[in-house]
């Protein structure tokens, strides 16, 4: 009887916890607003005015060739700001994800406490978290000052952030692998580098690939932001149009970006489904992908 009562009370904890979260959120929010709720009152009207007067309809001239330099490619769209910007963003994301992965994997191995003792792992964790502390936008500002405007700064900025972010995901994955294969390999007398190559990477390969694809997707989205500070990609065009108050063109670029990200998301789910075990991920319909769009 007592046991049932305990179970019941345990189950009751979840609604209490949920209510606590909701109430605290509203309390902190009202504290931030500081009684000035009027500022929120007209926000919807403002949004509709801004949307219909400035953003809508999107200006699809962004898909036409730029007037200068003269387009020498077969199709006009290949010389358009949208195409050039998105391709550059994809290139920046691709290179920085690849470089980030290559550098972060050894660092993450050193940061794993099931492979190396704390005196080695903790400094590497500090290194990775310090790289992660600065968002890619700040890294981009830093590299634009250091290297100058252009995609190389973008690549450097996103590589640094990728190392920090991916490194953390990787060492958590490595620490989560089963103890048994590590024990068997250690007892055998294999060195740490052999254990990493023969046990750790094969054992966590599915997760590592899945994280790599996630990071690429993430970098494509962030690639558009870093362009705003001059680090190349579609963000460069977005920031230029913003400066000249051409919001309809910004809207068109955002729609292009949205569809590219959705497309990458679909491809990445498809690719990840090959690597994630025991999860029956089906090829998603287009609508479902939009619903889980982040």
């Amino acid at each position, binding site marked *: 009887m007592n046991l049932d009562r305990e179970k019941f009370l345990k189950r009751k904890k979840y609604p209490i916890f949920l209510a606590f979260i909701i109430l605290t959120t509203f309390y902190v929010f009202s504290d931030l607003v500081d009684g000035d709720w009027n500022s929120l009152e007209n926000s919807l009207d403002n949004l509709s005015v801004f949307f219909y007067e400035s953003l809508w309809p999107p200006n699809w001239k962004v898909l036409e060739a730029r007037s200068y330099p003269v387009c020498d490619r077969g199709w006009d769209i290949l010389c358009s700001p949208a195409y050039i910007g998105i391709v550059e963003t994809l290139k920046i994301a691709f290179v920085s994800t690849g470089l980030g992965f290559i550098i972060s994997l050894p660092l993450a191995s050193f940061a794993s406490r099931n492979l190396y003792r704390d005196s080695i792992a903790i400094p590497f964790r500090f290194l990775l978290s310090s790289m992660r502390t600065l968002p890619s936008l700040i890294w981009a500002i830093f590299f634009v000052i250091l290297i100058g405007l252009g995609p190389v700064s973008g690549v450097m900025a996103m590589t640094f952030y990728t190392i920090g972010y991916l490194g953390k995901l990787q060492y958590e994955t490595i620490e989560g692998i*089963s*103890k*048994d*294969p*590590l*024990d*068997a*390999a*250690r*007892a*055998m*007398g*294999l*060195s740490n*580098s*052999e254990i990493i*190559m*023969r*046990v750790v990477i*094969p*054992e966590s*390969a*599915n997760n590592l690939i899945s994280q790599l694809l996630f990071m690429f997707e993430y970098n494509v989205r962030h690639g558009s932001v870093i362009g705003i500070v001059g680090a190349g990609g579609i963000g460069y065009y977005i920031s230029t149009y913003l400066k000249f108050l051409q919001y309809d063109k910004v809207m068109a670029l955002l729609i292009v970006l949205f569809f590219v990200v959705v497309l990458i998301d679909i491809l990445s789910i498809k690719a990840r489904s090959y690597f994630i*075990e025991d999860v029956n991920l089906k090829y998603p319909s287009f609508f479902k992908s939009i619903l889980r769009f982040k």
Partner: protein
Amino acid sequence: MSSVINVENLKIGYSSSSILAIVDNLQINKGEIVSIIGESGIGKTTLLRNFAKLLSPIDGKLLIFDSQLKPERGKLGYIPQKLGLITHETVYFNVLEGAICHESLLRSITGFHEEKVINKVEDSIKLMNLSDKIDEPIKYLSGGQQRRVAIARTMAQGAKLILADEFLSELDDKTANNVWNIMSEYVRSNDITLVIVEHNVERAKLADRCFELVRNQDSDFSVLLEVDK
């Protein structure tokens, strides 16, 4: 007969304040099959992990191959309870993990394996009757076949001492007996020492010597006693 494991006043556990078991005196000789039984949580796995040099003893003498240091590469094979195989990799890949003990670090990391290493892998797989499963991922194999892969891995590494931790526990009796027979036949014909933690008392008594970890009446730790067969 030379002793492979030599223990005197060994205290094991995870800290000096909580000793799990004490082993007064134990000599395990070359080519001997020794089984250890005992109730759950009494320290069987901890004792085996100490033998495998995965844990350091709290106090006392523990010599493996007459040395306090880690045995040389490949000489000691440890089969954990869940076998320690890479489950989504193939039989070949897993057995190769044992065989790389015979080559240089550079070769094992880069994957340019020597001919003798490849031969060792293939021979071990053949001896364990797994030739038709060579490219099959471990997760698609039956429990008995997975145990045979684990044995093939220790075979490929050329282990002179095999420590197996309850590795037959999840099998039905018929398969477990079959795997036991394969294992004992292999170790006996190659003069290999086997220390096996076993749940099934009947099977444990098939070993040359059987020990039991029993709780000491007056204290929290357990002691290792030889069981009369």
